[in-house]
């Protein structure tokens, strides 16, 4: 049975890991390589690392950091931040990263999705959309939620799929850091919009939130930042992950009845 993925998402800012609320107020939570080592030990399903400075500052991806992360990481790694061209994507995949994610570039210049898919294969091209709720629906923002693109989620998801994206990740700016649960209406909308694998980020504060997302969407990526870097009501920094028994329990509840073997 293909399993839902439970995926820590780490944000890199000024070389350290941070966690934001509503895409602002970054709080330092630790060292990227150290966090990867901890998630190796915890056997996380996969890991997403997003450099939140590169696109905003217009800098190149930090290849040295990416190479170090990829060498250390014994789980699949998705890297995003500052990637604008197929050549950059190829270089990053060459460093041992399974997936590259693009956001701003995919919105400004959607054909880059096709060029990347040709260069590294569709399966490695993740398109990330940061969205805010509005009366028009889910509006797509770029550059860490600082620029309104004027586009709605529906149109950009369909376009990304037809251009060869391998996965869509949707990130709720409204719910970022709130730890009050995913925007399930958003998750449901995305499931209706695309037949690609999908991942939802923004709002997870408990294992029950993950359970509700999986119940809503089936086999899905449940990504979370705060949940896996904070502990307790005062949000003390503590890198953590679901224990194997808890994770198995969560998955087993959702598993279809086993088919009898002849």
């Amino acid at each position, binding site marked *: *049975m*293909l*399993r*839902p*993925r439970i995926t820590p998402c780490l944000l890199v800012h000024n070389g350290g890991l941070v966690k934001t609320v509503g895409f602002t107020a970054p709080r330092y939570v630790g060292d990227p390589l150290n966090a990867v080592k901890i998630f*190796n030990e915890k*056997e996380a*399903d*996969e890991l997403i690392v997003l450099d939140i400075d590169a696109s905003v500052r217009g800098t190149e991806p930090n290849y040295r950091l990416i190479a170090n992360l990829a060498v250390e*990481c*014994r*789980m*699949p*790694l998705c890297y995003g931040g500052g990637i604008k061209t197929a050549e950059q994507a190829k270089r990053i995949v060459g460093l041992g990263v*399974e*997936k590259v994610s693009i956001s701003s570039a995919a919105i400004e210049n959607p054909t880059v999705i096709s060029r990347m898919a040709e260069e590294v*294969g*569709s*399966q*490695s091209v993740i398109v990330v959309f940061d969205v805010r709720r509005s009366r028009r629906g889910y509006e797509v923002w770029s550059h860490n939620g600082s620029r309104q693109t004027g586009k709605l989620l529906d149109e950009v998801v369909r376009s990304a799929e037809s251009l060869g994206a*391998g*996965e869509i990740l949707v990130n709720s700016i409204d719910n970022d850091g709130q730890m009050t649960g995913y925007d399930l209406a958003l998750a449901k909308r995305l499931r209706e919009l695309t*037949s*690609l*694998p*999908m991942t939802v980020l923004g709002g997870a504060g408990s294992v029950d939130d993950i359970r509700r997302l999986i119940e809503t969407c089936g*086999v899905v*990526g449940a990504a979370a930042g705060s949940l896996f870097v904070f502990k307790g009501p005062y949000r003390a920094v503590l890198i953590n992950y679901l224990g194997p028994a808890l994770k198995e329990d969560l998955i087993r509840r959702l598993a279809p009845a086993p088919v009898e073997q002849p």
Partner: protein
Amino acid sequence: MRAQLDDLVLRRRAAVLGVCVGMQMLARGSDEGKRPGLGWIDGHVRAFRSWEPARRLPVPHMGWNDVRPTSGTGLFRELDLDARFYFLHSFFFECAKPEDVRAVSPYGADFSSAVGHGNVHGVQFHPEKSHHFGTRLLRNFAEL
């Protein structure tokens, strides 16, 4: 280079492990390209999109899935119960000879997630990204 590889693998019988698209390269050919593969294992690589059982499922097939080996020996020593590995692919290996299938995984129906013939082995999943399951498999390969 091709002649040297053939010499190493077919005549001197060096153990080889193809991973993901590396496994697909072991086939005679692929829906993904026009040029022939290495042809070290008899079979053809097909797109999930053109395979009826998986036609309605999300492609790429991506995430952790069960791997059921045909035998708990060789590459799959101590991996015959409850083994899971990470997959990320849109194409899969269709073996011409059933005995070359070394493990299957379910996606719509069972597909070959590991193949083998003599000293040539291939796995569709990523052992290097599959935590202790992958470490075990790579150790098994080193000890073959």
